[in-house]
């Protein structure tokens, strides 16, 4: 069961975890629930393969904000768009962009400066969550990268500041870093599953995130937690399978729970749904978080 009200008091949620553990589903459910509670919510992904919009019945996630449900918009942020938005909207330098940055050679250069794409992505999340003067969104939920890549994303602002970026980029990056570090505004939702390998990786990564990332973990979610199978099933193959999985998951949950105590963190468990039908029902998140 997960009570997301504390999370929804923030402006930006960053959902991460090992690959293949249901980050996207958790991010989508958070977005759907926030929207149901009346928050104008933007669900963000930054990926070559669109995963968010299909959960809401659209074939692909657009690169512009697109409404997929009442109060709920989706967007897939790509590096060249982020750069254009950053320079025109954020720095207010439309003419500079038109005369200089739309140049093909320059765009390829932008893609090659180490860290620049990451800084722009974070800058754009900051823009939608906080800076946009029209105040379109109450909450931005980012279906972020898998944990290793996410850690390097989060360390980029400080690395960029240290590496000698100057000008508006440096001052804006400082603002972005401070926004990420403000725990009343930004929080990480870290997703794990009750499998031994996932749990041990989670316990390796969390301390690194807490130490190196300006944004801190607001919630650990143990996704796909199976329930105890009914006793009259035990004599079937299916029942035995469910029982074995339940025992293994309970074991993994214990390890996670003990490890998190040492880190001063708690977790919320979400149920194993077996198979996710697409698109999600309009009340999917309410039921998912209540179980």
């Amino acid at each position, binding site marked *: 069961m997960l009570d997301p009200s504390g999370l929804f008091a923030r402006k930006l949620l960053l959902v991460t975890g090992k*690959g*293949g553990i249901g980050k*996207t589903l958790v991010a989508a459910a958070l977005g759907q629930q926030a929207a149901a509670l009346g928050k104008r919510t933007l669900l963000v992904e930054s*990926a*070559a*393969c669109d*995963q968010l919009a*299909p959960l809401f019945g659209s074939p692909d996630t657009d690169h512009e904000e697109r409404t997929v449900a009442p109060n709920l918009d989706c967007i897939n942020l790509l590096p060249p768009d982020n750069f254009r938005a950053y*320079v025109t909207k954020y*720095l207010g*330098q439309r003419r*500079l962009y038109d005369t*200089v*940055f739309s*140049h093909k*050679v*320059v765009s*390829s*250069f932008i*893609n*090659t*400066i*180490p*860290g*620049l794409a990451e800084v722009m992505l974070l800058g754009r999340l900051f823009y939608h969550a906080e800076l946009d003067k029209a105040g379109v969104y109450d909450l931005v939920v980012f279906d972020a990268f*898998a944990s*290793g*890549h996410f850690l*390097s994303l989060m*360390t980029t602002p400080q*690395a960029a500041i240290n*590496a*000698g*970026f*100057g*000008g*508006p*980029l*440096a001052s804006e990056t400082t603002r972005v870093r401070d926004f990420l570090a403000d725990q009343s505004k930004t929080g990480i939702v870290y997703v794990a599953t009750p*499998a*031994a*390998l996932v749990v*041990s*990786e989670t316990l*390796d990564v969390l301390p690194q995130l807490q130490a190196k990332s300006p944004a801190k973990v607001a919630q650990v979610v143990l996704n796909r937690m199976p*329930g105890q*199978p*009914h006793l009259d*099933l035990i004599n*079937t*193959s*299916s029942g035995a*399978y469910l029982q074995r999985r339940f025992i*293994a998951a309970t074991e993994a949950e214990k390890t996670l729970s003990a490890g998190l105590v040492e880190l001063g963190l708690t977790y919320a468990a979400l149920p*194993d*749904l*077996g*198979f*996710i*039908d697409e698109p999600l029902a309009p009340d999917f998140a309410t039921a998912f978080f209540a179980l």
Partner: protein
Amino acid sequence: MMDAPRSLATIVKSSRVVVLLGAGGVGKTTSSIVMALLGARMGRKVALLSIDPAKRLAAALGIPLGNQLRRIELPAQWGGAAGGSVDAAMLDQKAVFDSMVQRHAPSEAVAAKILAHQVYQAVSSNLSGPLEYMALAKLQELVDDHRYDMIVLDTPPDTQALDFLARPNMLAGFTDNMVMTWLLKPFILASRFGLGKLFSASEKLMGGIAKVTGVHALQSFGEFLVLMQEVIAGLNIAGERIVSMLHQKDTRFMLVTVPNGAAVRSAMSLLTQLEALGYGAELLLFNKCLPVDVAGELEASDEGASPELARLRRRAAGEVRLIAKLTAAATGGPMTPHLLRLADEEQEIGSLAALQILVDKIAVQ
């Protein structure tokens, strides 16, 4: 009419290179080791290039992290055909990048300068993108090494786009930046002679960028590109050889996925990209499936109304649907793929013995 898929034994015995593709978290690294072990069992001399960001698998199997291959000691009861072996390396981006620089830099002094450069240190260990290119470059080295007759190549977990196959000309961005080097020269000169007047068209462009990034970042990036020129040229030649090698008939692609909507969507996207490049997936592996006995039981009877069983039944039906969907998509391409499945419980891997069980399961499919 499409040809029937070739048997797994035929595929393994006739492949020079097997490239595994799939989204993060689908068990790609484990699968790459299984394929390598399967090759060894069939008597092949296998080199395995794998990427395990969590490094757990590497530790369990005693595979060193870096770019040096090391023999995996197969247990005596391993059986299999004579002469089979696996040499494995878990690629570490920085180690591979370093060795490329050392190999292609014009002199040791330049190599040392590059390795110590601030920009290089950021690029070489912090970016996810170049790892695919690194793996390909290492692959090239191994294809030239006649101690191996089969090479298994894992790809990094974040690989969602096959740019590295479309343009293996090593860091395509850098290539365009041969032009960038020219554009950046004023900044390098400015750093040498002080920030004097900058003029000419290129300087105007760069001046625009500097308005955003500051001058210092451009200077240090410019210096870096100048140092890297020959390394990049060397890598580009290697890249062209890789393209022609990948188009050989004995290179096989294996698509690895799991039976859920998101993973299959990602696999379909990889498949489309692969086919657009003129390749096809010859092996299709579904990891984390329901065990065969459970799936069979659920199919045979629809008794039992408990919510757990209903959930399991939905999962079984969903699996069948998704496997059929991806198989049909892959069959529409240049070849009929051979379908492989592994059950979820078999995949909590911590030892070579556990991996052998997977090899047994795969070998008979």
